[in-house]
């Protein structure tokens, strides 16, 4: 399936900054077996004095923009054409959840995809006892000896049941602890809470930012989180299965309807736009997304 994606983000700053630097993770990458990027165009207004594209530690494409003078607004327009490849279905070859720790001890790797990065607390996903207890309870309640993949899906389903999607309930600064306590939030909160739960179960887990198809295929319900950039979870299910992706907001594996932009330990590693404006005062932003299948 080929998608045309458009994204517009506008920031207005309350006070003029004398210089500005932003670090963006907006451009998707080719991912073997998952997606191919056919076309990208990112327009930045006002035009930055410096702009460059690089790769970060996790292999994400970063765009750095620097303005040497003051700016009072920032407009980003992104146009993408991406082919989403059909991932082959597979039998569950993941190890038993109970065997995962010893499996991990044998992985002597610190490369970008190594599971070790995703095991412990990270800047936005600390250890949260309430979420740990919740995750343990989900596994205990299910009984038996689940595989890692089963455990991932069990937790995803349970969170979807437990949590209410509410675009107004939280902001980008809200932590997962608070969102879990109020049992509501947006896709970022769902993802962070699930990551915290998976890590508590000993499953390496990370954050994925990207796009979700705006209108569902005929006959399917409209999904949550289509009005802005979306976020979901990747989890490591052993050396054979590797990483699998799950969207707790919509209670489904991240499949055909998803395009990945960036991955990391949590939001901060994958944030679409991180900015440093040397000024006081708040900022206002608007954000619009559209992802439609290419008419053929």
């Amino acid at each position, binding site marked *: 399936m080929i998608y045309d994606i458009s994204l517009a983000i506008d920031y207005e700053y309350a006070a003029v900054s*004398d*210089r500005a*630097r932003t*670090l963006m993770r907006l451009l998707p990458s080719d991912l073997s077996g998952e997606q191919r990027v056919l076309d990208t165009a990112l327009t930045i207004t006002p035009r930055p004095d*410096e702009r460059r594209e690089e790769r*970060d*530690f*996790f292999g994400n494409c970063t765009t*750095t923009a*620097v303005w*040497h003078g003051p700016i009072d607004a920032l407009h980003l327009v992104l146009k993408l054409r991406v082919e989403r490849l059909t991932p082959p279905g597979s039998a569950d070859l993941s190890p038993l959840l109970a065997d995962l720790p010893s499996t*991990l*001890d044998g*992985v*002597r*790797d*610190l*490369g970008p995809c*190594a599971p*070790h*990065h995703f*095991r*412990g607390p990270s*800047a936005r996903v600390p250890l949260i006892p309430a979420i740990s207890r919740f995750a343990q309870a989900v596994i205990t309640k299910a009984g038996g000896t689940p595989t890692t993949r089963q455990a991932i899906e069990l937790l995803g389903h349970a969170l979807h049941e437990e949590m209410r999607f509410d675009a107004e309930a939280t902001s980008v600064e809200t932590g997962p602890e608070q969102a879990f306590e109020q049992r509501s939030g947006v896709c970022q909160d769902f993802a962070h809470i699930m990551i915290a739960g998976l890590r508590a179960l000993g499953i390496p887990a990370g954050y994925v930012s990207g796009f979700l198809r705006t209108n569902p295929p005929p006959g399917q319900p409209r999904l949550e989180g289509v009005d802005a950039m979306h976020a979901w979870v990747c989890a490591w299910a052993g050396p054979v299965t590797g990483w699998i992706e799950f969207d707790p907001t919509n209670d489904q594996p991240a499949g055909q309807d998803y395009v990945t932009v960036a991955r990391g330990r949590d939001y*901060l590693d994958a944030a679409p736009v*991180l900015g*440093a404006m*040397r000024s006081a005062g708040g900022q206002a932003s608007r954000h619009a997304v559209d992802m439609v299948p290419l008419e053929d």
Partner: protein
Amino acid sequence: MPAARPAKEPDLFSDYHRIPGVADELFDAEGRMRPVWARFVERFARLAPAEIAARFERGNQYLRDAGVFYRQYSGDPLAERDWPLSHIPVVLHDSEWEQICTGLAERADLLEQVVADLYGEGRLVREGHLPASLIAASPQWLRPMVGIEPAGGHHLHFLAFEIGRSPDGSWLVLGDRVQAPSGAGFALENRMATGRIFPERFPRAYIHRLAGFFADFRAQMKALAKAGGDMEARAAILTPGPSNDTYYEHTYIARYLGLMLLEGEDLLVENGELKVRTIEGPQPIGLLWRRIDAAFADPLELHSGSQIGTPGLVETVRRGNLAMVNALGAGVVEMRAMMAFLPRISEVLTGKPLALSNIATWWCGGAAERDYVKKHAGEMLIGPALSPDLPYDIETGAGLGGQGGDTEAWIDAEGPSLVGQEAVALSTTPAWVTEPGQPLVEGRILPRPMTIRVFAARTAEGWRFMKGGYARIGKAGDASALGMQKGGSVADVWIVSDRLVPKVTLTPKGEASFQRLAHGVLPSRSADNLFWLGRYVERTEDAIRLIRAYHLRLAATDNPADPLLRRLRAFISGYGIDVAQPMPEALLDRIGAARACAAKVRDRFSTDGWAALVDLHRTASVTLRDIEAGDDAARAMFVLVRKMTAFSGLVQDNMYRFQGWRFLSLGRALERADGLTALLHGLAEPGAPEGALDLAVEVADSVITHRRRYAVETSRDTVVDLLALDADNPRSILFQLRVMREQAAALPGAEDNGRLAALSRAILPLETRLSVVDIEDITAKRLLSMRGAFGDISDLITDAYLR
């Protein structure tokens, strides 16, 4: 060397006993005094307790005068505490020291290899010599730095090692300090202080000097600053700022080495190059000796919450344009758990065991190690694996094992985040101990545990070590109290030779014997602080004189309803000061603001100046806090005026006449001109109460001048003439405008293509007008408009230089 034992056993040491099972610095295993101490002990033992107390007090006085302080983390982020000097030095023979340093040089090279591997090839993890999960869990392993080659080729340039002597007499490494090692500046101050305490030529002539250590390192930093290719690039020190616990040392080293002391907001990144904002625009920086933790260096790429970093800093490193002492991310080798793996890594990377063992350490992430630690918990210090703290600086929730059944459950639950470290009993050394509240003279010499901090710097000729200077001395026999923040103290370390030691100086070898640092590197933030320091000081002095005048009159009339007093009260309230409070809170705030500005530029003016300002602050806020209105308050203000002028005089006399001084002077001149204008507007108006003119002249400190110049009573004309138009009176507006014009003309960018810059263009018309105006034209309206113009001038200075 023959044991030069004192003729008779000194009584001073009669209470000093070697603790069984623990090594001692003064006595060897057989209970004999180590010969290296003899020369010191012999002299020291001759001193009467009163003489000892007087000498120690001299050392303390030196540290207080020099303003050496240590920031204690507590409720008040700026609470300072005197440097806790333990007066008796630790004495080591230079042959033993050489052996230690040889071992530490090997260790430094090994650490360099480990850091290079963790950010490069990754062999240690791949081959299983370091657990991947341990490295991945370390907050100091900075992923954005992976794959980056450091400018100049090395990750590590300046290190400190914490070492201690184990019961069998051998030395052990207890901790590696890599991130931002502190203490080298304090070591120099320790040595200055012990120099006051033990000034005799002997034993001093046998002690190795500390000074030479920094000379080569400074040369190395200057060379490294240019490693990126920009020959203009400078080296600077990056500090988290005045609330850091060792900020004093940052200012000290900056002054000592002639390096700029910068904070994150001083820096900007343009086209992948790091620059410092100066009054002459951005200037290139090629090396940062950072005293901030790496994770705080760049809010965009490293730690999003950082308030003290510089966005884009990592990019300058990635491009090879900035060298770092030490490399961002090098702190990963500081963690306690690293000690568990270094012995094996040494074998793997160098084919040799560690030349100097480190404290035996077990990482509880491995099953076998976990069991071992559980079994031997009673003999171990168990604490966080990722922490860089020394084994003895155990945080709450950790401690000597053997806490019953809890320990095992704890280790099972949190294994990978814990280490067990052998609870070595450290050697003891003589310390002068007084009970709380006891005077120095009643102290006794008792054995106290100690560790030594050894500083190492990479130079062109390899690792170079500071010869002594810094030991931590524990409180009581309790080794866990060693932490400085928990009340330990610090002693000098003397490395003693059998022969006389030649003098060393800071002068580099060959070439010029000194180098004048180029001018024009005043960071904008320093200029800003100096400018405001000038303004605050002047404004405070004005306020003190006004308050004094008020209380003098109050004492004379004893009638608060007196019209002149009412006018004066209203005028002073325009300063935000309520004279109903004999020591107004607002005045204390103002003095505090001046002190806070000065604290941020302590590297730029003399210690005497700083001491004068601290004294003023203390006098006003403590000594004179409870004064009474009238005569008492007036006298208190006399004291404050004198102390204020002491500070102004010191600054005026001693400050080097360059850019920093210009901003201070501009601030003072601007504030004084504005204050005089306000004074004329408030007290010299037609219709002002009887005596107001005299008051204005008094507040402007021009009583004598007025008497001489006019030989008549004050009239509005004489007062305006003297305080506004007399170009020879430093207390006149015209005089201050002249100062401002001259200072502005000497600033960078004062002329642009033959035309005066905006600042000079704003000052000049004011000066000209006052030069030619008639007295009767100095109306209230004109005075008000002049005050507006002064505000504009302040804004122009800010726009042109201070951002």
